[in-house]
């Protein structure tokens, strides 16, 4: 009575079996990073031993990415997955993992590394209520904005890569040590240069910068978003303007000296506030590729520090 579905099924299964024969294995360790800073870090440590790619790029908000077919295909082939975590990728990473059928990179396996678990997280909420916006119960996930955090992740990443590719363990150890040597030296110069920024007050678009602020001693006095994840509203901006005053020096409490946003945030709100208060609005790179100059891990932080210093010294209109 049926049109031989069983025969069709058998044929398909045979075809599947054929496809599953081991493909020519790539010698390189395949690293799937959720954000560009982690793929750059993997390359900095592993060099030619790894083939790293990032799911997102600097002009994309990593909170909101679609679980696209191309990303599923990449996760399927990955040996190691590294993501910021702390629910930054909550909207898409679990879907990629459940669609990719790759046991090597599931949480709990050596191939799964969540960077935010390695650092001291800030903004860990006491209670989680969505009335306060898009809450991250494990704290603020934008840990990459403090270079000390990147150093901690580098150590763990090097160990993981060595564990997954033991034949090249010494290469990863040497790569980690070399990177950390250069990175520590760079941190020392950034901290020296950034000294005049300590204590400066900033308004941020989204709470993306708490680790940068913590590192440099900047003080966040407000956000353009009324609550995290909710786009700026006219009412909220007006109340900010009232607090800051027409000169940006503050009416009741101290004003601010920078308005900072990520390149993927709409410039409208920060420019609106800049026009009315004279406070300089900056788009700072949140990762590699976020500005013309941010071409690697080092030039990225060079650019962040220099942009802040330059905006500070500009005369007020």
């Amino acid at each position: 009575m049926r049109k031989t579905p069983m025969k069709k099924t058998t044929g398909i299964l045979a075809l599947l079996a054929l496809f599953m024969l081991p493909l020519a294995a790539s010698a390189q360790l395949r690293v799937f990073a959720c954000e560009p800073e982690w793929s750059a870090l993997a390359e900095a440590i592993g060099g030619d031993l790894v083939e790293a790619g990032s799911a997102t790029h600097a002009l994309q908000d990593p909170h909101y990415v679609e679980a696209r077919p191309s990303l599923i295909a990449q996760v399927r082939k990955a040996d190691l997955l590294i993501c910021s975590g702390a629910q930054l990728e909550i909207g898409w990473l679990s879907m990629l993992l459940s669609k990719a059928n790759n046991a090597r990179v599931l949480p709990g396996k050596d191939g799964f590394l969540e960077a935010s678990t390695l650092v001291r997280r800030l903004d860990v909420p006491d209670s989680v209520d969505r009335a306060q916006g898009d809450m991250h119960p494990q704290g603020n996930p934008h840990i990459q904005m403090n270079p000390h955090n990147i150093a901690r992740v580098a150590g763990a990443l090097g160990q993981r890569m060595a564990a997954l590719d033991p034949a090249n363990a010494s290469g990863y150890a040497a790569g980690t040590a070399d990177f950390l040597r250069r990175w520590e030296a760079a941190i020392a110069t950034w901290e020296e240069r950034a000294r005049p920024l300590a204590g400066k007050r900033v308004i941020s678009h989204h709470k993306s910068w708490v680790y940068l602020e913590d590192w440099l001693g900047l003080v966040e006095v407000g956000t353009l978003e009324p609550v995290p994840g909710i786009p700026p509203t006219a009412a909220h901006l007006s109340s900010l303007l009232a607090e800051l005053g027409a000169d940006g020096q503050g009416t009741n409490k101290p004003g601010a000296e920078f308005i900072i946003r990520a390149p993927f945030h709409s410039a409208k709100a920060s420019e609106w506030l800049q026009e009315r208060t004279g406070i300089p609005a900056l788009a700072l790179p949140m990762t590699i590729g976020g500005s013309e100059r941010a071409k690697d891990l080092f030039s990225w932080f060079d650019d962040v520090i220099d942009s802040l210093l330059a905006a500070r010294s500009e005369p007020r209109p």
Partner: protein
Amino acid sequence: MKFGALHLPLAWPLLACLAASSPVLAQQDPELEALRQEVRAMRQDYEARIADLEARLAAAEQSAAAGRAAPAPAATSQAGADYGYEEPPATSPQTVSVAPESLINTAIGVTFQGQAWAYDNDPEDYYIPGFPLGGEAGPAPEGLSLAETELTMSANVDDKFTAMLNVPLVIEDGETAVEIEEAWVETLGLPGGLAIRMGRFFSDIGYLNDRHFHSWDFADQPSPYQAFLGNQFLDDGLRLRWLAPTDFYLEISGEVLRGDRYPAGGAANSGVGATTLSATTGGDIGFSHSWQFGLSWLGADAEERASGSEDEPLLFSGDSDLYIADFTWKWAPDGNSRQRNFTFQAEYLWRDEAGAYALPDGSGGPWDSDQDGWYAQAVFQPFPRWRFGARIDQLSGDDPGAAWIGTPLYPSGSDPRRYSLMVDWSNSEFSRLRFQYTYDSAGDGAGDNAEWGTDNQFGLQYIFSIGAHGAHTF
């Protein structure tokens, strides 16, 4: 709905048991919770202090190193060892925070949905000539009503399996019923890119079929989904899904199902009444464009499958084959769909049925007919929160023969077509309000079916979700 529905008195104890066994509710013991909070606070405090000490140590080393003319190798390797870290044990809650489902053992979520519809004609009398509707298809009730309230629970069972339950609470004929819409277990990490799912689930066929009500872009399914799949095809069975280890995306899946639901029926072939196969591929073009294309087949055996009026159904027995081609294209500048995005999607469905129909008046006879349908829709989000959409859907069918003239199986002279417009507003990912207008010409030119004629339909809808809310598919 009929088959899986448990009525309320029976279902509540079941739900209560599930809830009681959940660790989330167990946490509500105030003493236990207070203790947990204390431990958590202590842990955070110590973590913070240790990190602080480490930072100070590193700073001290740096200044010591800076004091020397050139950094000695010993000092730098010391700094490196400092940042070497110890893996937290696998059971530490910190290791699993990417997957929200695993943070609390069971992820529980509720989606609240309600609607208001106004029609020119009486939706109780709605039918499409030539396409008697089965399953859950058909217009929403007139006036104010609650749409399904979805209760979702999911968690990993252990290191090898994950499970999910979706139970919509629906109002049927004035009574609340609990339906098991999805209840499945899936393997985690079989080798070779394979995964096996077992239980009840939405079939993988087509693009829209496996999407839950709350993630639809319009308030209703396009007409080919209503006519050929009873809105959505879900059934009990097994699925084997394989993802090719290729640079481009290629997924192939096959299902063997009970065949108890429209367009199958009667659990034919000793309870293996439906088979599906589907293949999906897709990719990106630059940063801003991505696409997906799929082909699928559903072969169903029907034994006295009911459609049309619920009280006096038409009964079909025979073979029903459905072929679907789906295409989706999404655009978002720089891949930032949050700011601005555009989605175009279209599907073509072709159904080939051979068997026999029995009509409620005792007549009937052999049936062999081809029918097809398609829809195309575009949804544009010009700025955050607001989306605007337009959709066309259409059905057309063969002339099944003069014997069927005057029956609900005889199609109208013109192909039934609908035009829909929608606008929705989302305050966050968890809330959405929608307006939809549909011009429906299902009954146009239908001869003695003309009492339905054409219809203007206005709908308002809300969708809110609390608790865990899983990530959405592409």
